[in-house]
């Protein structure tokens, strides 16, 4: 269970470039719950994921994973419990290393990396078996540099790597956004399949309303560094794309209700 308690993050504090990226984000991700985060550009979705992954430490607030305070853990230490897939399909794999070498990195996520040979016969067989399940024909190309693959193939492999060892939390940051529609659909399908099979707790940032409505069990909507909507359980099952759009509009409408507008309405509204 991932508990995010009132985290704040301001970039470049005290300068003209100050950005209050997170202003008190507060939610709990229960085990086995697949949650999507939606929100306008710059609303802080990626920042939340980065805070969980440990790319930076929040200015205030705590992050608990299974009751353990990981707020101050470095990124690589948290990786033992957290799987990640990035928006950039090239970010999650080492381009010049082979498919097998990339995967073997994932097989040791959070474990000691010793002086034994990385790719033994048995390991290679195991890798080939799992890669075969992707049905992309990659099992015959295990020794090719991963940089020679397409973005969709790399993203599928990154997903496989992120979930090779069952993570306590899977973080997906717009991981289908940079793919062509067909690959995006394939990776999305794979995501749903793996999350359902392994009963993973996952946080997925997406700009696709369609994905938000169909894939997860819960939807969080962010705006200006806060969670403004939380659709879960029967609310989530009922929600449709127009409801989400309307929720977006509501938030922007609130934003346009400025102090001068309030002064005008004081005269005009009876």
């Amino acid at each position: 269970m991932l508990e995010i308690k009132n985290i704040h993050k301001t970039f470049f504090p005290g300068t003209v470039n100050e950005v209050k990226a997170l202003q008190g984000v507060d939610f709990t991700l229960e085990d086995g719950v697949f949650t999507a985060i939606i929100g306008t550009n710059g609303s802080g979705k990626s920042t939340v994921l980065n805070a969980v992954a440990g790319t930076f430490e929040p200015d205030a607030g705590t992050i608990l994973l299974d009751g353990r305070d990981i707020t101050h853990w470095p990124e690589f230490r948290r990786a033992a419990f957290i799987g990640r897939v990035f928006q950039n399909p090239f970010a999650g794999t080492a381009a010049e290393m082979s498919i097998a070498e990339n995967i073997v990195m994932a097989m040791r996520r959070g474990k000691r990396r010793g002086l034994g040979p990385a790719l033994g016969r048995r390991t290679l067989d195991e890798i080939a078996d799992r890669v075969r399940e992707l049905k992309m024909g990659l099992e015959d190309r295990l020794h090719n540099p991963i940089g020679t693959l397409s973005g969709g193939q790399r993203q599928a492999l990154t997903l496989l790597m992120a979930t090779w060892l069952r993570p306590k939390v899977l973080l997906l940051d717009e991981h289908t956004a940079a793919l062509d529609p067909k690959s995006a659909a394939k990776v999305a399908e794979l995501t749903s399949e793996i999350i359902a099979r392994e009963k993973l707790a996952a946080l997925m940032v997406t700009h696709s309303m369609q994905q938000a409505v169909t894939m997860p069990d819960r939807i969080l909507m962010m705006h200006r560094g806060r969670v403004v909507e939380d659709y879960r359980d029967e609310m989530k099952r009922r929600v449709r794309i127009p409801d989400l759009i309307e929720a977006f509009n509501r938030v922007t409408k609130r934003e346009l209700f400025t102090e001068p507008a309030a002064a005008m309405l004081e005269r005009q509204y009876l």
Partner: protein
Amino acid sequence: MDLQEKRYGTELAITVSGRLDASWAEFFQEHLLRRVRAGEHRLILDVADLSFLSSMGIRALMAVYKELKAIGGTFRIIRASGMVHDTLRKSGLGQWLSDAPLDAVTPAPDGPAAVAATPPGLEHFPLAAEGGLSLEKVDAWRPWQAVNPQMSREIRFTPDGFGLGIGGAGETLEAAGDYLGEFVAFNGQVAAQPPDERGRPDCLLSEGEFVPSLHCVQALVCRGPLSHLLRFRADDERPCYPLSRLLAEMFRVSGAEAIGFLVVGEVEGLVGASLITSPGRLRPGMEIRYPQVREWLSFSGERAFAREQAVIVGVARRTGQAGPEASGLVPVAVPAGEPPMAAHMHAAVFPFQMLPNGRIEAARVAARLFSGPPPRAVLHLVDDDRPGNGLGESALYQGACWFGAITEGGELL
């Protein structure tokens, strides 16, 4: 496929050539519906050069025909030959085929013509009506004070009246207290906005014995006949009609000092606000200022609901320089050369529906709107006159205003 247009009297002839098949049907349908929306309610399709008509093409023709039929327009197909003629006949659509030559003089539309001497773009139809409107007013709440229950009243919206205000349905005012929101009522139908940011407006329709009634903390209700109809349509000279322009025209036509009115029209943009927390929750001594007011009121924030259909109900009065301060009304923008006016208007927004041209009946139009898809919002219209970045007042492209002079209760304003 290629489309050419030519006007014959009140009819618009559209020459279709090439193939009308699945790949063109959608484009074709949209083009024709755009013409209908712009007021072309009498269409002729010249299909002499149409070589092929598929089922998709027929479906598009059907869609246009239905739309025209609903608003009393006409639709005929001329010079059909060979395959097209066969297809239409075999599909049972032979009634569309017409042999009348194109250059035959088309008769003028039925019914009495509009009274002349109105500015271009406007048509005035006097309605046979005896007497004026009587006004009833409820004034039990002013923002942001607590509701005064003694002054509130339950109002039954019988078909002879129309009105606007803030109210809620329930056994008692107590029970309705958490659901007080903006409403619009006309002809026994009520559209009411629940005071909730997520809420969808509700409709209460007269049905048999049932008469919708609301506990009102604010209301302006007119009863009596509407004596004028004014049709308006945007053109190149006047791209849209701001509400103040329509008000000024209604005052000019009716010659009255105070009027009650119903306007139905295609929206250019609406600017308004509606409650998102019921005023029933206000307690004496509470102070609501910015930013708390954002928890109570939602502001449209933009010129909203473009291209939808609005039903605007309102009451307005000319205020004159020396006239007494209008109560319950707010000064509206004043078009150049017109005397100052004040008004209170609520709008219910429905998905767009075409209106027939010419003289139309308010009750029929309203019944069709209220029985269709549910309204998208009900809001109190404001004139955002903030200098610099104000949104201005609401405006419509085209539609109809029904109105009459308020002869009883005008002093309440």
